C-alpha cells in the first residue's frame, strides 16, 4: 500500500492557509512554514513521525488568523471608539438624527416583535396545547362557527370517548358578590367539572372540581381566579373552605387558580377573564337542546388528528340530528385548533404590521446609510490625507465601521426604551382586539432579536458607506480641491437610497390610507341608532329576579323615573341587550298565518324593552307605531320588527304590520316597523330584530338585567355619577354591571379596526418623516456640492427663483421616481390587506390618487428649505469657498 503523502498534504494545507495571511507578509510566512515542514519531514524516521509533523502544520491556521487579526487589536479599537465619539460630538445634529432614526426603528420593531411573539409564537400555557380543540356548531348558511348546546355536548362526551380524552363546556356567569354592604358584579364562568382537567392546569391553592361536583343537586363550590384571590383576599391560603355569597347563594371556595393561567377565551364577544368558576348545577335534560349558549373545549385522544376527529364527530352528530331533527337539523359540528380560535383573527393583522415595521426599519437603515455616505463624502479629503500618510484601507474601514457600530449601539439602547414605552401604548391601544395581551413581556428571546437587529443594522448601513468612502479616494490627489466632493456615483447611490425610502413610505402610506378609509367607512355606517348624547347603565338581574312580576316592573319604572329626573336628561328607556354590544339572543320567530315548516327556521335577535327606548336610542319608525305604556302585561301582546325582520319573515312582500307571530310560545301582533339596526356594530350587517315589551315577554318578563338607555343634552358622560346615584336612590343594593357612553360601545366594536389603522398609520408616518429627513439631507448635500456652480450662475445673473427651481427640480425628480415606484409597489402589495378592509377596495382610487400627490408635495417641501438657503448664496462667497 502506498503510504499517505503526509508531506504533500501538509504543504498543500499551508499553501491554502497562506491566503489568509496579509499580502505583504504572505511570501515570508509560506517560506517559514515550508522550511519547518521540510526540515521535520527530512528528519522523520517513518510514517508515524511524518504524520506528527503534518499534524503540526494544522497550527498554521491559528498562526495565519493571528496575523490577519493583528492590527485590529483592542488598542486600535479603543482609539477608534475615542475618535468616533469625538467625531459625533462635533456633529451633534448628524449624531442625533442617526441615533434617533435607529432608536425609532429598533424600538418599533422590538415592540411589535414582542407582541407577535407573545401572541402568535408563545405556546398556550396548557398541557399539550396542540391536542386542544374548540367544538363549534355550524349552520349550513353561516360559515362562522357558533356556540353549542349543553345536552348535545353531554351526549357527545359519552359517544366520542374514542375521539376525545376529555370534553368540557363553559358558559358565561355574572354573579354578584355580596360582602356586608359591598355589592360587586363579577365576571364568572359556569363549567363542567372536568374543565380544568381537560386544559391540564394546576391550582395555586386547594383543588379543582371533582367528578361528583357537577349536575343537579351538587354542592355549590367555586374556584377563585388568582387576581381575585390577591385583590380581595390578600393571597390568604386560608380562603379555601370559606363561604362566599354569590348572587344570594353561599358557595364554598375549594381552590385558587394558578398564577399565569390564561383563559382560553372560548366564548368570544364581550367575554372577560373570569374571577370565579362554578360547575353546572342542573341535569342535561333540564335544558333545551336548541339552547346554544355554551362553548366546548376538548382534548383529542392520542393518535387522533384534527380532521379525523372532526369526521368522526360529524358522524356522531348526524345521529343526534336524526334523533332531534327539530333542534339539530341541518347543523353540523366543526373542530378548530384552540390556538386558532384564540389568535386566528389577530394573525393576519399582526403579520401585516410586522411587515410594515420591517419596512420602517429598512427606511431607517437606508436613511442612516445615506447620512453616513454624506458624512464619508465630506471626509473624503481627510481620508485621502490619511491614506497618503500610510494608513491602511483596512484601518480606515474599521474606523468607519466603529463609528456606525457606535451609532447602532446608542440607537439600540435608546431603542429598548422606545420599545418599552411603545409596547405599553400598543397593548393599551389594542385592548381586547389583541388576544393573549396579558402575558406579553420583553423576554430573553426578544432581547436576542433586538441585539441581532442591532448587530446586523450597522453591517447593513456601515459597510456600504465605508467601501464607498474608500473607492477612488486614494487615487485622487489629496490636495486637489475637487476631492472635497464625492464622485457622481456616490451621490447617485445616495439619491437611489432616498428614492427607495420614498417608495417604501408610499407603500406604507397607501396601506394606512386604506385602513383609515375603512375605519371612516365603519364610523359612517348608518347603524340605525344615534350613538351621540346617550349613556348606557347596565343593571344586574339580581336586583330584580327575586321579586314578583309586578314588583319588578314597578321597580324598573321607578328606576327610569329617577334617572329621567336627573338634570339634562330628556329620554329614558330600557333594553335587555343594548345595541353595539357583542351579546346576542337569536330566537325562533314563527308566523301564525303559515303552517309550521320542517327543518331549521331563521331566527331573529329578540330584545325585551321598557319605556321610551326607541327615541332614547334614536331609532326611526318606518310604519305603524312604537311600543307604548299601554302595552301592559295584561294588554294584547305587541311587537315591533326591524326592516330586515320584515324582509326575512315576510319574503312575499306582505306588510308585517298587523301580522301575527309566535315568540317564546306566545302570539304577538306586529304593531310597527323600525329602520334596520346593526346589533353588533358596523362591521356586522343589519340583522332581523324583534322588540317586545318586557312586561309581556313570557319567559322572564322584567325580572332580568337590562340596560338603561339615557339620552340628554350636554356632556352626558359627566352625568354618569348622578345617574348612578339616581338608581341607588331607588335601592342602593341594585348592582351595576357597567355604566358608559353609547359611543364607547361603538368604539369597542371597531377597536380592532382602529388598532390596525392607527398602528399602520403611525408606521407610515414615521417612514415618511424619515424619508423626508433623507430628502432634505441629500438636497443639502447636493447644494453644498454645487455651491461653485450655483455661485457662477448667480454671478452670471440667474435670479433667486431660477436657483431655487434648479435645486427643487433635482428633488422633484427623486420624489417622482419614489412616487412611481411606490405606487407600483402599493398597487401590488395592497391586496394583503383585502381581508382587513371595510367599504373600500384594495385599489381605492381616492387613496391611490391623493397619497402619491401628498408624498411628492411633502418631498418638495423638504427640498425647499435647503433650496432657499442656496438662493441666498452670495456669488462671491460661493466662489471663494473653493
Amino acid at each position: 500500500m502506498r503510504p499517505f503523502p503526509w508531506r504533500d498534504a501538509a504543504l498543500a494545507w499551508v499553501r491554502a492557509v497562506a491566503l489568509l495571511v496579509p499580502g505583504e507578509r504572505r511570501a515570508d510566512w509560506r517560506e517559514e512554514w515550508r522550511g519547518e515542514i521540510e526540515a521535520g519531514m527530512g528528519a522523520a524516521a517513518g510514517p508515524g513521525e511524518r504524520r506528527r509533523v503534518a499534524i503540526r502544520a494544522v497550527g498554521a491556521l491559528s498562526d495565519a488568523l493571528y496575523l490577519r487579526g493583528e492590527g485590529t487589536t483592542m488598542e486600535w479599537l479603543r482609539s477608534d471608539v475615542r475618535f468616533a465619539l469625538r467625531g459625533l460630538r462635533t456633529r451633534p445634529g448628524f449624531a442625533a438624527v442617526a441615533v434617533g432614526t435607529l432608536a425609532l426603528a429598533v424600538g418599533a420593531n422590538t415592540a411589535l416583535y414582542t407582541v407577535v411573539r407573545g401572541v402568535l409564537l408563545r405556546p398556550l400555557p396548557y398541557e399539550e396545547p396542540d391536542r386542544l380543540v374548540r367544538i363549534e356548531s355550524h349552520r349550513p348558511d353561516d360559515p362562522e362557527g357558533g356556540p353549542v348546546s349543553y345536552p348535545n355536548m353531554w351526549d357527545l362526551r359519552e359517544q366520542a370517548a374514542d375521539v376525545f380524552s376529555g370534553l368540557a363546556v363553559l358558559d358565561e356567569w355574572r354573579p354578584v358578590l355580596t360582602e356586608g354592604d359591598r355589592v360587586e358584579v363579577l365576571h364568572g364562568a359556569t363549567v363542567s367539572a372536568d374543565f380544568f382537567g381537560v386544559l391540564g392546569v394546576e391550582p395555586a391553592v386547594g383543588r379543582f372540581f371533582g367528578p361528583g361536583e357537577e349536575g343537579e343537586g351538587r354542592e355549590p363550590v367555586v374556584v377563585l381566579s388568582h387576581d381575585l384571590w390577591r385583590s380581595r383576599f390578600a393571597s390568604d391560603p386560608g380562603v379555601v373552605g370559606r363561604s362566599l355569597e354569590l348572587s344570594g347563594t353561599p358557595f364554598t371556595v375549594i381552590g385558587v387558580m394558578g398564577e399565569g393561567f390564561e383563559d382560553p377565551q372560548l366564548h368570544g364577544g364581550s367575554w372577560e377573564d373570569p374571577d370565579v368558576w362554578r360547575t353546572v348545577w342542573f341535569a342535561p335534560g333540564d335544558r333545551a337542546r336548541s339552547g346554544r349558549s355554551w362553548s366546548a373545549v376538548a382534548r383529542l385522544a392520542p393518535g387522533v388528528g384534527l380532521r379525523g376527529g372532526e369526521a368522526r364527530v360529524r358522524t356522531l352528530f348526524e345521529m343526534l340530528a336524526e334523533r332531534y331533527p327539530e333542534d339539530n337539523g341541518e347543523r353540523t359540528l366543526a373542530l378548530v385548533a384552540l390556538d386558532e380560535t384564540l389568535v386566528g383573527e389577530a394573525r393576519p393583522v399582526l403579520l401585516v404590521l410586522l411587515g410594515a415595521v420591517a419596512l420602517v426599519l429598512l427606511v431607517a437603515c437606508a436613511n442612516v446609510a445615506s447620512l453616513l455616505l454624506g458624512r464619508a463624502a465630506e471626509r473624503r479629503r481627510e481620508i485621502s490625507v490619511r491614506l497618503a500618510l500610510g494608513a491602511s484601507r483596512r484601518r480606515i474601514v474599521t474606523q468607519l465601521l466603529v463609528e456606525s457600530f457606535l451609532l447602532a449601539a446608542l440607537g439600540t439602547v435608546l431603542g429598548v426604551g422606545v420599545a418599552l414605552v411603545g409596547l405599553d401604548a400598543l397593548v393599551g391601544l389594542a385592548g381586547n382586539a389583541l388576544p393573549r395581551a396579558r402575558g406579553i413581556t420583553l423576554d430573553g428571546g426578544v432581547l436576542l432579536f433586538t441585539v441581532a437587529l442591532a448587530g446586523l443594522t450597522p453591517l447593513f448601513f456601515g459597510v456600504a458607506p465605508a467601501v464607498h468612502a474608500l473607492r477612488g479616494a486614494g487615487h485622487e490627489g489629496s490636495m486637489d480641491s475637487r476631492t472635497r466632493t464625492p464622485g457622481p456615483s456616490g451621490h447617485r447611490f445616495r439619491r437611489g437610497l432616498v428614492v427607495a425610502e420614498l417608495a417604501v413610505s408610499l407603500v406604507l402610506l397607501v396601506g394606512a390610507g386604506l385602513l383609515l378609509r375603512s375605519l371612516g367607512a365603519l364610523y359612517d355606517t348608518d347603524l340605525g341608532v344615534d350613538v351621540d348624547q346617550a349613556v348606557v347603565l347596565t343593571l344586574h338581574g339580581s336586583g330584580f329576579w327575586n321579586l314578583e312580576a309586578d314588583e319588578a316592573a314597578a321597580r324598573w319604572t321607578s328606576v327610569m323615573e329617577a334617572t329621567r329626573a336627573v338634570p339634562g336628561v330628556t329620554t329614558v328607556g330600557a333594553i335587555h341587550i343594548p345595541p353595539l354590544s357583542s351579546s346576542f339572543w337569536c330566537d325562533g320567530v314563527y308566523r301564525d298565518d303559515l303552517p309550521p315548516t320542517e327543518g331549521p327556521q331563521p331566527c331573529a335577535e329578540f330584545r325585551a324593552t321598557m319605556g321610551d327606548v326607541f327615541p332614547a336610542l334614536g331609532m326611526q319608525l318606518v310604519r305603524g307605531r312604537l311600543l307604548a305604556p299601554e302595552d301592559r302585561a295584561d294588554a294584547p301582546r305587541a311587537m315591533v320588527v326591524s326592516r330586515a325582520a320584515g324582509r326575512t319573515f315576510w319574503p312575499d312582500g306582505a306588510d308585517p304590520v298587523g301580522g301575527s307571530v309566535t315568540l317564546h310560545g306566545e302570539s304577538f301582533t306586529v304593531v310597527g316597523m323600525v329602520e334596520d339596526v346593526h346589533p353588533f356594530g358596523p362591521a356586522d350587517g343589519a340583522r332581523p330584530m324583534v322588540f317586545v315589551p318586557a312586561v309581556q315577554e313570557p319567559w322572564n318578563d322584567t325580572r332580568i338585567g337590562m340596560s338603561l338607555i339615557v339620552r340628554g343634552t350636554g356632556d352626558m358622560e359627566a352625568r354618569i355619577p348622578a345617574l348612578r346615584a339616581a338608581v341607588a336612590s331607588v335601592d342602593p343594593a341594585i348592582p351595576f354591571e357597567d355604566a358608559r357612553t353609547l359611543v364607547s360601545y361603538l368604539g369597542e366594536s371597531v377597536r380592532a379596526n382602529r388598532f390596525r389603522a392607527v398602528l399602520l398609520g403611525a408606521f407610515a408616518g414615521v417612514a415618511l418623516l424619515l424619508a423626508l429627513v433623507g430628502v432634505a439631507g441629500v438636497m443639502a448635500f447636493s447644494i453644498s456640492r454645487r455651491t461653485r456652480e450655483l455661485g457662477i450662475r448667480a454671478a452670471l445673473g440667474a435670479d433667486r427663483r431660477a436657483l431655487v427651481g434648479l435645486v427643487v427640480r433635482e428633488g422633484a425628480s427623486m420624489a417622482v421616481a419614489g412616487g412611481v415606484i411606490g405606487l407600483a409597489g402599493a398597487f401590488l402589495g395592497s391586496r394583503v390587506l383585502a381581508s382587513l378592509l371595510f367599504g373600500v377596495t384594495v385599489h381605492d382610487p381616492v387613496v391611490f390618487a391623493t397619497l402619491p400627490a401628498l408624498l411628492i408635495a411633502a418631498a418638495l417641501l423638504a427640498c425647499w428649505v435647503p433650496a432657499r438657503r442656496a438662493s441666498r448664496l452670495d456669488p462671491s462667497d460661493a466662489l471663494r469657498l473653493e
Partner: protein
Amino acid sequence: MSIRLTHATAMVLKALAAGYRYGFDIMDATGLPSGTVYPVLRRLDGAELVDAAWEASVDPSEVKRPRRRLYALTAAGRALVPQAEARLGDVARFLPAAEERAAGGEA
C-alpha cells in the same frame, strides 16, 4: 513595548533562552502545539523581544529544502527570562538544555 506574560509565552521565552531556535524545535521542547507557539513568536517579534532571521549557513539547493527561520532573544527578551522562569516555577526544571539534547541527552 510590553507583553502579557502568559504561561505559553513564558514557556517559549524559556525555550528560546535554553537555545532552541526553530519553531518546530520550540514545539518539541515545550510540548505546545504549533497553533500556540507561532502566535506567541509573532507577538514576541512584534514586541521586539525576539529577532527573526533566515538561516544563512545553508544553501537551499544543496540541502534540498527551504531555508528555516531562526528566532533569538534580543536584549530586552533576555531581560524578561527571569520573570518567565518565576512564572513557570518548578516546571522549568524539567526542561533540558539544548546542548544536553544535542549530546544525546534525550533519545
